[in-house]
């Protein structure tokens, strides 16, 4: 069978918000899935298999919720698969779905990722007492703040970098009608004055808790060629990669994780990219706390270690910069945790297809989607391009 070509031929997402009280979980995932199907000009009957991803089941209080969502997602009589790889899950779910096509098993696969955070309280769901482990942190921010402090110490980055990232992403989010946070009055000063939550991470430098879903339709070469012939541009998957490393290991560098670097090197090799800074036109990366933009720029090979913040400071990552990062507003504007990785992968595909609307960057030929999870230990990436690999 080998490796068949695969492309994104449909993309859909919900309007994200703190509480989508107007829909059940089934209504939420269906909203995203139907938009992806409409985008692909397909119906439920065209879909061969469905791959669902979400973060921990405790976030909604439903055990293996894909079981009760099966009929809402048109799965009756079809294969339905549930992926869970921590915060990277939205990305890994899309990758697992793409492999069902690239392996030649299926022609058209629908993949959906979601979180309905309003059903519970994610910060405390992430802070469960583990026997023999000291309860040192509250939520993800408490866990990651020491990593950020370490980055600042090692790189000598000035204090305002995190605030610049937050300002850029929130301003990009204003151009994205689906984004959760729309803060037209946001300014550098308002970010600076916001409450310090986990030093050096301020409230305005932190992702929101969102309800939302994202869906993609992945098609075989034949399906994608047909779409292209009808004027619907496919985003060709030029490479996919996943890497995992331990939570607790003396060898780890959580500021510049080896797993992330290996994941990036693998996906660039598959996509024939030797100089990512020059060859990649746009990046959607998983930045739940502002400082992760410079950290991931370095980890993914867009800057030398210790230099990523200079790209941010110089405006290189702005919508009109030479390497736009998080055109959609990113995780800092929208964070339905399980879907956040797929939103990154989907935005990369939208940029390549030229369907990103107001936050479209001109002439994107190659884009990177990135997600991470756990204690900066699970990584999922793909490269999508306008050209057939």
């Amino acid at each position, binding site marked *: 069978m080998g490796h068949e070509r695969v492309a994104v031929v449909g993309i859909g997402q919900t309007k994200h918000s703190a509480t989508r009280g107007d829909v059940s979980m089934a209504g939420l995932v269906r909203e995203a899935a139907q938009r992806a199907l409409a985008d692909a000009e397909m119906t439920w009957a065209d879909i061969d298999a469905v791959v669902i991803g979400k973060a921990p089941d405790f976030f909604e209080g439903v055990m293996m919720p894909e*079981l009760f969502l099966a009929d809402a997602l048109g799965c009756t009589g079809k294969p339905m698969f549930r992926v869970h790889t921590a915060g990277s899950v939205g990305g890994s779910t899309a990758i697992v779905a793409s492999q069902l096509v690239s392996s030649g098993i299926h022609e058209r696969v629908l993949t959906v990722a979601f979180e309905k955070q309003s059903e519970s309280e994610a910060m405390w769901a992430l802070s469960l007492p583990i026997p023999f482990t000291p309860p040192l942190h509250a939520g993800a921010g408490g866990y990651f703040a020491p990593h950020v402090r370490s980055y600042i110490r090692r790189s000598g980055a000035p204090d305002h970098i995190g605030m610049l990232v937050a300002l850029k992403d929130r301003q990009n989010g204003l151009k994205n009608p689906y984004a959760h946070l729309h803060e037209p009055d946001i300014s550098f000063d308002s970010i600076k004055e916001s409450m310090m939550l986990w030093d050096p991470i301020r409230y305005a430098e932190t992702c929101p808790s969102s309800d939302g879903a994202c869906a993609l339709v992945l098609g075989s070469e034949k399906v994608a060629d047909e779409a292209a012939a009808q004027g619907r541009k496919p985003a060709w998957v030029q490479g996919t990669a996943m890497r995992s490393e331990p939570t607790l*290991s003396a060898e780890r560098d959580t500021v510049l994780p080896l797993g992330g670097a290996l994941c990036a090197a693998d996906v660039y090799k598959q996509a024939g990219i030797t100089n990512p800074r020059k060859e990649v036109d746009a990046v959607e990366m998983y930045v739940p706390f502002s400082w992760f933009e410079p950290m991931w720029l370095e980890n993914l090979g867009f800057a030398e270690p210790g230099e990523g913040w200079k790209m941010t400071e110089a405006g290189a990552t702005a919508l009109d910069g030479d390497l736009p990062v998080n055109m959609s507003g990113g995780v800092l504007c929208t964070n339905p945790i399980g879907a956040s990785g797929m939103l990154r992968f989907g935005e990369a595909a939208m940029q390549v297809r030229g369907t990103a609307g107001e936050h479209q960057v001109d002439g994107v030929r190659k884009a990177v989607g990135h997600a991470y999870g756990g204690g900066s230990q699970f990584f999922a990436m793909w490269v999508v391009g306008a050209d057939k690999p």
Partner: protein
Amino acid sequence: MRDIAVIGFHQTPARRRVEDLNEVEMLMPAIHGVLDQLDMTIDDIGFTCSGSTDYLAGMAFSFVSTLDGVGPWPPIQESHVEMDGAWALYEAWVKLQLGEIDTALVYCYAKSSPGDLPMVLTRQLDPYTVGPLWADSVSLAALQAQALLQSGKATEADLAAVAARSRKSAMDNPNAQLAWDRPADELLAEPYHIAPLRKHDCPPITDGAAAIVLAAGDVARAKVERPAWIRGIDHRVEPIHLGLRDLTVSESTRIAAEKAGVAAGKVDVAEIHAPFTHQELILAEAMGLGDDVAVNPSGGALAANPMMTAGLIRIGEVFNRIKAGTADRGVAHATSGPCLQQNLVCVLEGES
């Protein structure tokens, strides 16, 4: 498809309650058992995939701790499903089809003992409608059994015969939790547990873990004399709502068995993941298995039913028999969700 085989399998002995070990400690002997069997280490593995559920571990991201036990350093290619290990094996099989790697480790585990399992499983039900009624898994299975009896397709004696055969077969299974030899007519004299199910119609509650190694083509042949080749594997799902399904048949199993090619040859052995006696009858019919098939020689899920694991064990049990040469072609089945909602069928063959 690329030729992929099961080359190693190890399971921990099924126990009602593993109190002296945490999940990681319980799982490690399964992983090291299968790697040692093949004289391999984690460095020889191209892809690792696991199956487990946070709801039984009682904490978010529980699989993260068990992955630490695997020792993923330097960083590895790895994935996790919130499903039975049989589906983790499916993902690994797909990954192997891509031709970039030649080996995969699949593992799964669950401790059901810390909670009240039938109550915990109510959290799988539609949270807006059925979940608040706390309809437990045994009661739902009893509804299905009642539907089967009323359809005239089976009698209570048929159910007792499944129980008697399974527990007797389990006496030859060193990993079984529940094994005995009692005639079916004696079982029928016992009172109902949840009518029409008697205690012996229900599975034990089990803590346990299992692991499998998959390998491609010549890598598999170099490692073991008689690999169990995966000739077909498919899985299908139905709606969770019992009112939308005919509970006396398993349409998803029928489709999966057809796609996996069960009927393409003689079946020597079938390991069916049927937690309740009546479900074995429904599943055997759905897969079109004849009377000449040895069904659940391990005792099946009635002998030991570790959640998230009992499905993968079925594949391992068929592998064991092909490896030993006592079977040439076997069918393994895994299920998930209330009343057989989701089903996977895998056809395994020895090389002739």
